[in-house]
């Protein structure tokens, strides 16, 4: 039951994570999920039920675009990549995240 110990991604940061991962290069949904898990050393986990709606939302917003391509294993998959708008959004989300998390840290330290 190891999975149960994994944490869900904090609300509001999923877009940030996806954008950041796509900034490294185009990737498909499974790849994004895997990368979140591996790079967070298995602490974070992305639910498919949140990942794909999030991707659809970002497609609508025009932050990412999608195209069907073959993976290294010669499997057809939908690859997402960042648009210029997406890049701008990433910067925005990162700075917002920093602001919020610093503030949270301050609150925690002040009260301890």
């Amino acid at each position, binding site marked *: 039951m190891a999975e149960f110990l994994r944490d869900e991604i904090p609300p509001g940061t999923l877009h940030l994570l996806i954008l950041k991962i796509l900034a490294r290069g185009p990737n*498909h*949904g*499974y790849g994004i*999920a*895997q990368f979140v898990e591996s790079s967070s050393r298995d602490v974070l986990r992305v639910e*498919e*039920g949140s990942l*794909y*709606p999030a*991707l*659809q*939302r970002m*497609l*609508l*917003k*025009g932050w990412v675009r999608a195209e*069907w391509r073959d993976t290294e294993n010669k*499997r*057809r*998959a*939908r690859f997402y990549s960042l648009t210029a708008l997406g890049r701008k959004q990433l910067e925005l989300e990162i700075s917002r995240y920093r602001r919020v998390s610093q503030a949270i840290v301050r609150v925690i330290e002040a009260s301890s």
Partner: protein
Amino acid sequence: MFQFVPEIARRLRYLFARKRLEAELREEMETHLTMLAEDNDPAHGRQRLGNVTRWSEISRSVWGWNWLESVIGDVQYGLRLLAKSPGFTIAACLSLALGLGATIGIFSLMNALLFKPLPVLHPEQLWGLAHGDPQQEEDNFSYPMFSELQRFNNTGVPFFAVGGDYVQVDYGDGSIRNTPTMLVSGSAFQILDVKAYAGRMLGPDDDIRGIPHGANCIVSYRLWQSQFRGDASAIGGHITIGQQRFTIVGIAPPEFFGVYVGAYSDLILPITAYAATNPAQPLLDAPKWTWLVLTTRIPAGMTAQNVAAGLNTTYAALRRESKFADSGPARADPLYLKPLAQGVSAIRNRFAKPLYVLLTMTGLILLIACANIANLLLARSVVRYREVAVRLSLGAERGRVFRQLLTESTLVALLGAIASVPVYLACTKGLLAFLQSGADSDIFLNTAPDWRLIAAGVGIVCCTVLLFGFAPALRVSRCDLNMALSENSQRLAAKTSFGKFVVGAQIGFSLVLLLGAALLSRSLYDLRTFDPGFRRDHLLIADVDTTQSIHKNADVVRFFDNLLERVRSLPGVRSAAASKVVPLGGRTWQNDYELDQDRDQSANKIHSYLNWVTPEYFQTLGTPLVLGRDFSAQDSASSPRVAIVNETFVKRYLGTANPIARRFFEITKGKRDPIQIIGIVRDARYRSLTDEIPPTVYRPIEQLPTAFDFLLELSLEVWTRAPARDLAGPIRSIPKQLDAQVSTEIRTFDSLIDSNLLYQRMLTALSIAFGAVGLVLSAIGVFGLSAYAVGRRTPELGIRMALGSTPGEILRLVLSEHLRLLGLGLAAGLGLSVVLTRFLRAWLFGVSATDPILFGAAILILSAIALGAALVPARRAARLNPVAALRHE
């Protein structure tokens, strides 16, 4: 900024490529799972396998089109259900179509008559000058008043005068036609801001006394098309009116029908040029002839009060100089302004009221129809209780179920609305034709749909959905799961209070309609049978117009003497006479007289209606002479002045003493002329069948003052042995034999009475039709409720019968429920009737708006029909076989 624009575009693309994109999503999910399975152990992948559908559904919901899909689903489902019960669908749609079509049709006429603004720029800035009674028509200024007010107007806001008339126009191609004409002062089109379709509109230069720039005129677009076939060379062409030739200088724009709502002004003339068509008439100098509407445009930033105050200063100053001394007593009132955005209308006051009554009636029909549909839906919804309960227990949201049920009602309403379009068009056309048939001039109403009509239509349709769809949908979606899913299907339908309420309301509305029909029918019957003071049939009226031929009064007198002589000698003619005014013709001649010198000023002055008649007039019309003698050949222009008065005149002004040989006085040019009373006649109606009988003076036609050419147009009354119509041909030919230039119009007195009663007839016919429709719909409603109630109580009734109840007791049991309902409905209907029938008063004659006998009769009829409708299912219940009834469950 505007980042949402590409987003909306993308969303729309998702809507239209939905199927393909959904497939892509699914494929993406499958790939995801496959990759997951490859990387991990197969069990891990399988564990999540079932979620593909759910993931893609959640992802899809991001596109934001789920609501649309569910609406489409609801619509498809609703259509399937409606198709499954075609009887219900057709009945519901047809009754809705009739109710909606009639209501919207009537509204479209009201819209054209009351609400649509004039087809000019910023019509809301237009105001009409008025003084005196606000209920009065706007045309109460004379030309001298207009020109004086205009000359001394210092408000900075210009105004113009406009009048309307029918004018005999010679179009130069052999056709002389009576043409509806608008007469305007020079600045009219500058103020109205109307530009010509071709050529130019009239300007100040065209309207100068003596018309130094010639007589110019404008034709309407409609006339240009019909008379000049749209030929551009019409501009510069000529027409002739009376003694004046006019040059056509322009064509009015197509949408501009004038400022008279209800008429289409085909010709527009400057007032001064119009005056030149008949120099004998002192049109521009007669202060008593108040025929003009004064109109102004108040620009933004100025208020009507300020302008009116400014004008009043001028007006008061002019009055002090007694410029308007001859303009009658009411002219001492201050001026005020009233909005003229909707134009001037002579027919507005006359038609608005019947239209409101009709709108109320159709509204009630629509309500009754809605009630029926609501009841049908309710009955169906009970059948669907279990279906809904199952869906709810499987997790459907209540709101979702409610929406689905409401969709169904909306579909019914929409189908009804579509079917109502031809009804609406036919209704508008039929009503226009009806209004036209009672009018003496062409009626033009622009009934083309505008936003007001569309908004009203959509509003009414939405209301109907709310009325008949909301309650059943709400009730079903609130259903109690435990009850619905339990086997006892009787209990779940126990609550029929809403159904009862609906049927009760139906009965109430029907009572109102029925009462309206009863009151109007009764009063029409009275109008057709009461004694108006003269005979109703075997009378022929011939309007003889000699204006085109004879110009000397002596000649005219001789002409009419000859004419009467010839008519009297016709076989089949009992007697014949001539008069200036035809009774019930809608026209009046009124005059002021003085009684005696020794009375004080106020009581001395009397006001009376007047008619100029020949000998034999009373005998011909059948008005009995009560006292004294009829006029004879001795009462000529040179003999002493004499008069015959009616009983009301005697009662009101002369008291009880014998009035024969009494004298009263006419003031002409400061001189008191004595008039001697030689006879008294029975009271007779004057202006119309329904107007009160006024004090009336009859005087010999030969003593008519000759100042104006009043004798040139007279009417002949002929009392015939055979039906009046049979003599129309011979009588029509006689004036022509005497003088080829004379024109004659023949009417029977019956037709005159009929046109007098046009609105009563129209309202009565429609109210009877509406009353019948309401009755039938209500009977259906009662029958439905009763049948439903009996069906529902079958097992209970079976038990009662098994326990020894007689059929009579069962019948009473079932009916008692309906009796209560009927009682409540009637009580509510009575209350509503007392309020609503008051508005019928204007058309009621000889019957009170709360006539107890008619109320009783209407209640009886309605009760009988409602009970009859309830009785059919109740009797079935009484004849139940208890064994079969108990097995029913």
